[in-house]
């Protein structure tokens, strides 16, 4: 039997459950995580010296957060845990891990990738002004640092995070100017039958909306952002069109926005897993089966990094992927448990489709992005420059358009602009996003100090 320890990349809900499952089978996995503590983004732990209890930090999900943290703390001593460590490359059967300014090559035979997700963004004029953050970022400021991102905040966009973060701010006493949803009310109503399958997830969403209403917070549906305006080099207002098409100006000193989540796929790409376009998520995703196996032998995917399905699915998927790894190593695994995990994953997938219908990605905002909008904030490339470069040089593939325009070539590797850039390019060429391809992951997947990678 293989003696080299399996590796888990990421210590969020998927990575923790994967590691715990491997540990329970008597293996001592290496767990590599970029963060200083386990929990991932959703169950991110407060830094040392912070005192708010679980209920204040995680609300309805306090029990889940505590269970996940305790599960990891329980195995920490029997695994090889490497926090504060960035996997910046993956090739020839080895991970390249950066920690404390030094890179080490860690060979693997089997690896579970659980890199998670980030906010999905559509740029709009003025979005790079100080005071404008992602919804996830606004949540991190509050939960991880005890800070509100401003005194008078506009929450804008779509997806479950919109109402959750606004609610958390309202509860913490943060000043809210308005909650502006890009989804028309009718679309959400149509999605209700499917959402009901989500059980408590749906109920929580309704609760947040009701709680915001009860506090008298201004809410609107079916809006479109027009521009963020600045004064003294920071945001001072959001200009938007309401559902009736009238322009409105809302004074604010901060904006939190986002349009659902986007999977972190760079490492899967470097592992040479084939990708396919996912019509529900509107993103190219690495291929994996329900068990988390990929077409590349020894590489497994778990959690939102393989497609957005949320924290509960990540925990289940993490356990399932670890069981797949164990099966492939010749361990006997509990068949009924495997069947139950897969059934749960199927159920959640059905609910996610309804959720995407309730909070559809407003691709029209990206397609109609004004030319002067900064599309790529790393390289300062406007939507107009991107369109002109693509059209003039006949770049009908996104990596060519990137090479000609520098859009997506900066430090973030298109994590921020990529989803919108694909829509901008497809619309400019009168093609569909799945026809123009996807930005390829490149090592280092995140910036590393000069000299480390040579």
């Amino acid at each position, binding site marked *: 039997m293989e003696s080299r320890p399996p590796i888990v990349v990421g210590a969020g809900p998927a990575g923790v459950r994967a590691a715990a499952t491997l540990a329970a089978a008597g293996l001592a996995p290496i767990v590599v995580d970029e963060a200083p503590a386990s929990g991932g983004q959703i169950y991110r732990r407060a830094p040392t010296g912070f*005192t708010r209890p679980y209920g204040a930090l995680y609300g309805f999900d306090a029990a889940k957060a505590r269970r996940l943290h305790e599960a990891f703390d329980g195995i920490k001593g029997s695994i090889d845990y490497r926090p504060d460590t960035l996997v910046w490359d993956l090739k020839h059967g080895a991970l390249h891990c950066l920690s404390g300014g030094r890179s080490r090559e860690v060979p693997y035979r089997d690896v579970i990738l659980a890199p998670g997700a980030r906010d999905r963004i559509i740029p709009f004029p003025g979005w*790079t002004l100080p005071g404008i953050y992602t919804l996830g970022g606004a949540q991190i*400021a*509050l939960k991880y640092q*005890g800070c*509100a991102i401003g*005194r008078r905040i506009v929450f804008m966009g779509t997806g479950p995070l919109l109402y959750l973060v606004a609610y958390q701010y309202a509860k913490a006493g*943060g000043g809210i100017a308005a909650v502006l949803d890009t989804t028309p009310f009718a679309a959400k109503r149509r999605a209700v039958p499917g959402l009901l399958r989500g059980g408590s997830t749906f109920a929580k969403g309704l609760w947040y909306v009701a709680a915001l209403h009860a506090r008298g917070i201004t809410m609107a549906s079916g809006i479109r952002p027009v521009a963020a305006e600045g004064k003294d080099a920071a945001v001072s207002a959001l200009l938007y069109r309401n559902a009736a098409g009238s322009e409105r100006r809302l004074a604010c*000193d901060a904006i939190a926005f986002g349009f659902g989540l986007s999977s972190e796929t760079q490492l899967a790409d470097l592992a040479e897993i084939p990708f396919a376009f996912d019509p529900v998520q509107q993103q190219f995703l690495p291929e994996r089966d329900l068990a988390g196996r990929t077409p590349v032998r020894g590489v497994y995917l778990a959690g939102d990094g393989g497609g957005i399905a949320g924290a509960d699915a990540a925990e289940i998927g993490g356990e399932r992927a670890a069981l797949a790894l164990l099966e492939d190593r010749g361990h006997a695994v509990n068949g009924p448990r495997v069947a139950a995990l897969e059934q749960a994953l199927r159920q959640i997938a059905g609910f996610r489709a309804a959720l995407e219908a309730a909070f559809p990605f407003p691709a029209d905002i990206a397609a109609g992005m004004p030319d002067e909008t900064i599309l790529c904030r790393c390289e300062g490339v406007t939507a107009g420059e991107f369109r002109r470069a693509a059209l003039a040089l006949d770049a009908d593939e996104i990596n060519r358009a990137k090479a000609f325009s520098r859009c997506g070539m900066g430090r973030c590797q298109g994590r921020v602009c990529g989803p919108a850039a694909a829509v901008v390019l497809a619309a400019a060429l009168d093609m569909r996003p799945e026809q123009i391809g996807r930005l390829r992951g490149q090592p280092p997947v995140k910036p590393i100090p000069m000299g480390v990678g040579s």
Partner: protein
Amino acid sequence: MESTQFQRVAERDRPRIRLVIDGRSCEALAGDTLLTALLTNGRRVRASEFGDGPRAGFCLMGACQDCWVALEDGTRLRACTSFVADGMRIVTRNDVDDGI
């Protein structure tokens, strides 16, 4: 007094530490990220390389890479994932950065 971007609403009872931002002596709390320390003392983190004004971070989770700052000794740190330490000297302006 310059306005600040971030407003502390909880966890205010932590040890105070001193740091220097663009030559100005400032206060932060132990457990603050550099980003929090900068934005509870002002509204900027760095200058855009493209002349479109200051930036003040974006994703706060180490994905967007738009909050890299320099210490006076040249060390570069991602502000949202680095903790502040007593006596740190941070520069957020290119003119300081270039030594002009």
